[in-house]
């Protein structure tokens, strides 16, 4: 039986602050909180031990009001209600100064974390005995046990395959650390020293955050501080609702996108999103987000236990845009009056469905939200590819001849969708997450890079070109390794819009061009690699925006010279003729006389609607 989960913000949780009040103090407090957040982040980055955190920088921080409502988050749309799971288990009245709480329990936190590798530490801040705020530090831990090194695997079919689960736990009780809980956790990692060092960095970060927020509250006073947080929330909510209303007319708007596969033979899985705007009796608008028509949950680990805060957070980020004065916080989620999800669906799976590869579905949800904005008449980007990961686990021989295990989870960037005002972003992974530099990788891992470059012609052609994906080719120097890969949007490439074409697709090939060449399924695990094998990963691009025949020819020429667009594609897709590294104006004019007729979207071919 399917039941709708209704998760809007009840009236009582509405921001209490008014949009008016002292704007000077508000701006000063906003700046002080931002500084505290930067300091917490710098501490994690400088002191964490695992490459996943300190080089790839998979960590975030946040600040919440006295009731646990996010007042200042990070610029990523993946956060939901982070403090709720802690407050549900530990009543606020039982909390004391010096406490730190910890969890990674996806189902136990209603998707506040959405795969078990992410460890969340939350600490209450007190001032003169009163609880005034919470701070959070969150980071992806490289290995927490489970089926395979790295803890996430396309082979997982149960969340128990994905490592140890920590329910909301009081890690530090008024200054006394629960060393037993930590010892059990670290013992469950294949890399306990990294786990230990990373946890120390995270603990030091929340403790620093507590100290800094205490100082801020002491300076401004409890009520001024609380009022400022409430106003930051109200401001964001107000801006987002106003801009939602400008895009979405009354009625229901729908958009459907899809992920290719769950890695276990099933797929595609459709994500069917709808947003309905109605006018209530009191004259206020009501926005209801509904994803209940999304396909059923998967057997493989692509389920995305989507905290109901996520759609509002993503739409909020889109509507806040690039204005640095705006704050990404719970005002985004609170802008939606209700979020409807269906238990048993891909976006609200039942325990113990596996979740490890949910990043792929999360990225597709973000693209589908762009689609939803666009069908309603807004100007959101075209679709992006889902960022790609390769995970290698194996053994290599050290200079001394001993065999040593290694784990390399390498995130690879993709192309993002083109926008009405700019090309899509070339070759990026996600907000704040960085690559492993070639020289860094080769110093510490048994691989050698043969190529790290932009994937030519992967950006969807358009007046604004979609971002290009990446080529990353490794030579394996390990004795042997077991490889997992996660690539999506191969069967359903990232759509282009307003005449723009879809983005290119990714692939994974072992020993390309050799007699033993193997093309690997895009979402799969268990591939054996041996010393000397070549692994070539190509990632997908973003969709284009606007008709490619409207792109100025000199921009196409520069793309050809820079290795983003091939000569053939310039001719075929853009109608631009280039001869001897120079534009051929007559040839271009001739080509552009035969202009393909566009429709609303493009995925493989022009279509009026994506279904």
């Amino acid at each position, binding site marked *: 039986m399917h039941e709708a989960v209704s998760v809007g913000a009840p009236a009582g949780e509405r921001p209490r602050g008014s949009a008016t009040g002292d704007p000077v103090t508000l701006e000063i407090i906003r700046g002080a909180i931002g500084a505290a957040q930067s300091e917490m982040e710098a501490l994690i980055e400088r002191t964490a031990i695992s490459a996943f955190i300190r080089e790839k920088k998979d960590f975030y921080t946040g600040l919440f009001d006295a009731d646990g409502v996010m007042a200042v988050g990070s*610029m990523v749309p993946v956060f939901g209600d982070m403090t709720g799971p802690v407050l549900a288990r530990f009543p606020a009245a039982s909390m004391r100064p010096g406490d730190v709480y910890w969890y990674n329990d996806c189902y136990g936190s209603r998707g506040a974390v959405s795969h078990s590798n992410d460890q969340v530490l939350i600490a209450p801040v007190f001032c003169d005995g009163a609880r005034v705020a919470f701070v959070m530090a969150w980071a992806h831990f490289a290995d927490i046990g489970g089926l395979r090194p790295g803890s996430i695997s396309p082979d997982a079919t149960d969340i128990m395959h994905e490592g140890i689960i920590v329910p909301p736990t009081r890690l530090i009780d008024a200054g006394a650390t629960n060393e037993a809980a930590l010892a059990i956790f670290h013992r469950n990692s294949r890399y306990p020293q990294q786990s230990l060092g990373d946890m120390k960095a995270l603990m030091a970060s929340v403790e620093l955050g507590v100290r800094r927020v205490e100082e801020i509250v002491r300076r401004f006073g409890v009520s001024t501080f609380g009022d400022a947080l409430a106003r930051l929330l109200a401001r964001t909510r107000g801006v987002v609702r106003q801009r939602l209303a400008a895009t979405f007319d009354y009625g229901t708007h729908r958009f459907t996108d899809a992920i290719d596969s769950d890695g276990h033979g099933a797929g595609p899985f459709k994500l069917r999103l709808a947003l309905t705007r109605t006018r209530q009796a009191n004259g206020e608008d009501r926005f209801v987000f509904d994803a209940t028509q999304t396909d059923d949950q998967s057997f493989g680990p692509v389920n995305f236990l989507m905290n109901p805060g996520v759609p509002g957070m993503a739409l909020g980020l889109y509507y806040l845009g690039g204005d640095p004065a705006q704050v990404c916080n719970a005002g985004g989620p609170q802008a939606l009056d209700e979020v409807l999800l269906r238990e048993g669906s891909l976006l609200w799976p039942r325990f113990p469905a596996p979740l490890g590869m949910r990043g792929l579905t999360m990225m597709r949800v973000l693209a589908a939200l762009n689609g939803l904005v666009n069908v309603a008449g807004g100007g959101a980007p075209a679709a992006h590819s889902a960022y790609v990961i390769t995970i290698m686990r194996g053994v290599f021989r050290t200079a001394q001849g001993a065999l040593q295990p290694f784990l390399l989870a390498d995130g690879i960037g993709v192309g993002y969708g083109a926008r009405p005002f700019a090309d899509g972003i070339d070759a990026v992974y996600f907000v704040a997450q960085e690559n492993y530099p070639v020289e860094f990788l080769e110093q510490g891992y048994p691989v050698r890079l043969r190529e790290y470059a932009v994937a030519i012609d992967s950006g969807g052609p358009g007046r604004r070109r979609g971002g290009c994906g990446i080529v990353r080719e490794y030579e394996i120097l390990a004795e042997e390794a077991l490889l997992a890969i996660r690539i999506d949007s191969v069967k359903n490439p990232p759509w282009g819009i307003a005449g723009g074409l879809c983005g290119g697709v990714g692939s994974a090939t072992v020993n390309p061009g050799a007699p033993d060449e193997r093309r690997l399924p895009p979402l799969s695990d268990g591939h054996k690699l041996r010393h000397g094998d070549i692994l070539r990963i190509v990632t997908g691009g973003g969709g284009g925006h606007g008709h490619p025949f409207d792109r100025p020819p000199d921009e196409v020429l520069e793309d050809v010279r820079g290795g983003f667009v091939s000569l053939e594609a310039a001719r075929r897709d853009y109608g631009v003729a280039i001869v001897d590294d120079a534009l051929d104006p007559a040839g271009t004019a001739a080509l552009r006389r035969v202009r393909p007729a566009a429709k609303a979207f493009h995925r493989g071919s022009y279509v009026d609607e994506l279904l």
Partner: protein
Amino acid sequence: MSTNSSEAALTVAVDIGGTFTDVALRDDASGRVWRAKTPSVPSDPSQAFLAGVELALRAAGREAAALGRVLHGTTVATNMILENKGAAAALITTAGFRHVLTIGRQDIPRRANLYAWVKPPRPVPASRVFEVRERVAAGGAVLTPLDEASVRAAAARCRALGVSAVAVCLLHAYANPSHERRTAEILAQELPGVAVTASSDVLPVVREFERSLATALNAVVTPGVATYIARLEQRLADLKVDAPLLLMQSNGGVAGAARIREAAITTALSGPAAGVVGAREAAAECGVDNLITVDIGGTSADICLIEKGRIGLTQSGHVGGWPLPLPMLDMVTIGAGGGSIARLRDGALVVGPESAGADPGPACYGRGGALSTVTDAHVVLGHLPASLLGGRMRLDAEASRRVVEETIARPLGLSVEAAAQGVLAIVDNNMMGALRVVSVERGRNPADFTLTPFGGAGPLHGCALARLLGVSRVLIPVAPGVLCADGLLAADIKAEFARTLAQADVVDMGAAHAIFAELEAKAEAWLEAERIPAARRSFARAALMRYRGQGGEVATPWRDEAAALESAFETQHRGLYGFTLDAPIECVTLRVEAVGAVGAPPRQTAPRGAGARPAATHPMFVEGRRIAAPVYDRATLGAGDRFTGPAIVTQLDATTLVHAGWRAEVMANGALLLVDESSAEGMRA
């Protein structure tokens, strides 16, 4: 004044700002300083350079031939990067890695919005990146020998494009630079007149994107900087000056023109460095060696902490959004200055980082500025006199009131004064965030430091910032608006010589000593070339260390015993981050800081004061009402003079605002010390 000074050497320092070029000329025997100011000539900065030097010489009644050293700080490289107006350059890289610059670190920045962010254009576009066949492994071993034909082919393409500079950055060249060196050699042969830069010379550290970027930026600025230096040298030759030209670098020291031509990028972060050195000297003259400097100009504020007279170095600098991991003074820069624009956005009052610049500038400049700036807020509150620059520039106070009223006060329902106070409160708090970064966040208690504001707008904010930070002493140098020229006079000759180990590892004392010996030999050779006598040379060894696995290193002063070195590292780690780890400690980079000290001239003293007398009064808004605040002319104040705030102190190059509750005293060297009367120190006196 001595009469035989015509035989002693003179040192001249020239600092070129956006509006004015400031010159300080010093008689090294007596220590006497003459100053000159002349309008800058943006189209040819060397014109103002020459005019300023001539003016100063005339003021001193001396001949150009008496000049012993010519010191100069230039922002030519910085501006080329910020304005994207550098030379058309090419980048040569290892086959397969053409798009390292394009990809960057493959991130959308942490504070950016993924829907709105646009990847900035690279200093060298992908269309001008060419690959050569070669490969060096992580440890430095050659996997594929350099294919010289591919280098010549790349040179041919550079020639066809007509580039004026070429950067070379090959994989793992920090561990083995032989391929890079050979590539650069061939390019130099094939491309006469083209500046060739190799990454192993510019920044020999691991991580290909950051190293490629630094090398590309160096290539982009080299032709412009070389042309500029040549023009200056010609101007000096025309004046019959036979003295070395020394330029300020990002590390706070100066270096000869020959070295700057090789590594022009080392000047890119030098803009704020001279002022910090000047502030250190000004404070030292007053016996103050723990200070926090705040240099506030029109668009930005640079903040730096000096402990026991030492200015720290960092390798995490940025220029125009690009990371540039070259040794630079450890300072924080924020987009807050006198020209910062205050505006409402979606109901939020925001100040900066946009600036009205010099043109149109603040509304009170009367050049058509229609937006409220920080300077306008000061004018509304009566913090600035009716005119600046000794009466040459009148301020339009009505224009300030009008824009603050229209753009802020009325929409927010505030009085004009309350709106102006709000603007200042926000900008002061923004700066306080940066002040905390260099102090509290690094384990220092600001109360142990003296705040030293300078720059045209610094002394207006000294008392407010000190109060916010819990600092009770503010020191205003003699010439806060032209401190950069003083800093140039005081700067040592300085360079860092570093070697990143091919593989980070636990410290091997034997190997380390061999590397240090090699680095010190290079450093000696350079100081020899700079004509520094042996007695004035000094070398400081440091190791950049971390726990195995960490991403950030801590610069640790060298110790000859491994245990002592490790314990020094752990002490610093605990101080910075609050914990230590039970993990192996490894060394990443060894570094030698080479210094050629300049002699300290005799110190100047200010004439004894006859008691502070206000020259005028000015209506100032203090605690809700208008009062007639005394205005002191700094030229009439003498050593020992005292007065209390609220007050304004005017001088040619800056205006000092003394808040109510603060006491001012003129020090022996003429500096102004402000003390918070509510502090323990203030109560004592």
